[in-house]
C-alpha cells in the first residue's frame, strides 16, 4: 500500500506539496510515484531562482526503466534544490516525503495549495 501522509497536498501527476506557515513549500514525488518508477538513478532539478508556473515541468526523474518529467504542483520561485540527490537519488525511493524532497519554493500564492488533491482524493486517484 502506498504511504500518503495526511499533512500534504497532492498533484494528479504524483507530486506532493508541503506548505509552511511562512509561504514556502517543499515539493517531492509520492511514494506511489517512486514505487512505480523503480530504482531512481538520476534527478535533474532546476536552478535556484527559477520561476515555475503551476503544472510546468521542473525536472526529470530517471529510473532504470525510464525518464519521467516532474511538474510543479503550484506556482513559485525556487529557493533551494536538494543537492544531496545528485549523489544519492535513491533517497527518493527510500524516503520520498523526507530526505527525498526535491525543491523548496517561495509560493506565488500560498492559497493555491487548496486547489490540489487532499490525501483522501489522491488515494482514490491511484486506486
Amino acid at each position, binding site marked *: 500500500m502506498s504511504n500518503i501522509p495526511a499533512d500534504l497536498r497532492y498533484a494528479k501527476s504524483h507530486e506532493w506539496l508541503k506548505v509552511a506557515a511562512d509561504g514556502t513549500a517543499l515539493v517531492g514525488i509520492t511514494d506511489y510515484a517512486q514505487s512505480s518508477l523503480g530504482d531512481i538513478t*538520476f534527478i535533474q532539478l532546476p536552478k535556484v531562482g527559477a520561476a515555475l508556473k503551476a503544472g510546468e515541468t521542473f525536472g526529470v526523474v530517471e529510473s*532504470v526503466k525510464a525518464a519521467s518529467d516532474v511538474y510543479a504542483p503550484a506556482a513559485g520561485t525556487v529557493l533551494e534544490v536538494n543537492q544531496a540527490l545528485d549523489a544519492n537519488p535513491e533517497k527518493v525511493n527510500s524516503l520520498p516525503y523526507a530526505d527525498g524532497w526535491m525543491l523548496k519554493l517561495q509560493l506565488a500564492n500560498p492559497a493555491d495549495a487548496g486547489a490540489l488533491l487532499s490525501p483522501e482524493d489522491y488515494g482514490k486517484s491511484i486506486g
Partner: protein
Amino acid sequence: MSEIQVTPLNAFHRRHGGRMVDFAGWDMPVQYKSILEEHKAVRQRAGLFDVSHMGEADVKGPEALKFLQHLVSNDCSKLFPGRILYTVMCYPTGGVVDDLLVYMRGADDYFLCINAGNIAKDIAWMQEQAKGFNCTVTDRSKDYGQLAIQGPKAVEIVQTLTKSVLADTKYYHFADGEVAGVKCIISRTGYTGEDGVELYCAAADTEKLAEAILAAGVPLGLELAGLGARDSLRLEAGFPLYGHEITEHINPISAGLGWVVKFDKGPFIGSAPLQADKAAGPAKKIVFFKTGDRRIVRAGSAVLNAAGAEVGQVVSGTLSPILNEAIGSALVDAAAAKEALQVDIRGTKLNLQLVKPPFVTLKKT
C-alpha cells in the same frame, strides 16, 4: 498477439512480491524489490532467476551433428558428451536467427537452449533446415522449467542440495543429477559473468526446486532476482542480447562475436557473407561504452561524431550498479568507431568512452 504466457513459477513470483511485466509475450518479474540491489546481490553473493521462459529443443538422429554443423556458426565437432557450446545460427544473409547453447548428450543426441521470444521462429527455422538430414528437431520448451543461480555463493548454495560434486563440472559443461530431490540437468553456465549453475528440470518440479534453493540460499545472502537485473548483469559482462547487439540485421562479425564463427569447419548457413565481412571488415560494428555520468543512455539514442553527425545508434543502455555510471552498447559506422563519439541526452552532450567488456572484473570460472 496471442495470450500472454506464464512459466511454472508464476504463482511463486506473485507470492514473493515480483513486479510482473510482459517480456517478449511472457508474464515475468522485472524485479522483486530493487533492480540495483538484486544486481549487487548477484555480484557479491547470489541471485535466483526464473529463466523457464527460455526455449529448449532436442536434435536427435544419426545426422544430428551434420545438421548442426550446417545450422550454426560455431564448430559442434569440438563437443563431447557433457560439453556445451555457445553459438549463433544465421540466415543466408549472415543476419542472426538467434543465439543459443548446444549441449551434447550423446553421439546422436543434442539439446538446445534458445531465446524465449524466438521459440516459434527458431523451431520453424530449424525444422525447415533439417529437411534432407536424417535427424529430428523437437520443441521441448513446455516440458522444462529452468532456474539460474548466479554469483560467488551460487555453487556453495546449490551444493547443499545435491550429492553431485558441482566442482567436478567445469564452466560450459553439464551433468545429470538431482537437486533437492528433483532430477535436473546441472549446467555450469549463466548470463551474468559470475560463477553459478543453470538447472533444467521437469516443468512440474520447478516450484519445488525454486523454494528449496531459496530456503537454502537466503542464509547465505541469496536474493530473488528479476529480468531487470538479468539485463544489467549481462550488459555489464558484455554479453549480447538478441534483438539488441545481434539481430536479423546485425551479424556476428559486426557484433564482435567472430570467436563463435568457425569458417575452417566448412560451409554453414550464412558463412559466405560472413567470411566476406570478416575479410573486408564489417561496415558497422557494435561498441561498448561508458559515460562517467549517471544519466542512462537509452536504446535508440543517436550516436554523434564530433561534428554532430549521426554515425550510429545505441542498442542497449543501463546504469552499472557497480561502476555507478551509465554503460551501454551501440551499433556505429566502423569508420567512426575510432573517432570521438557523443550522445545528446535532453540537451546535455556526453562523451562515450569506449570500453572492451566486461565493464567489471569478473571472477574466472
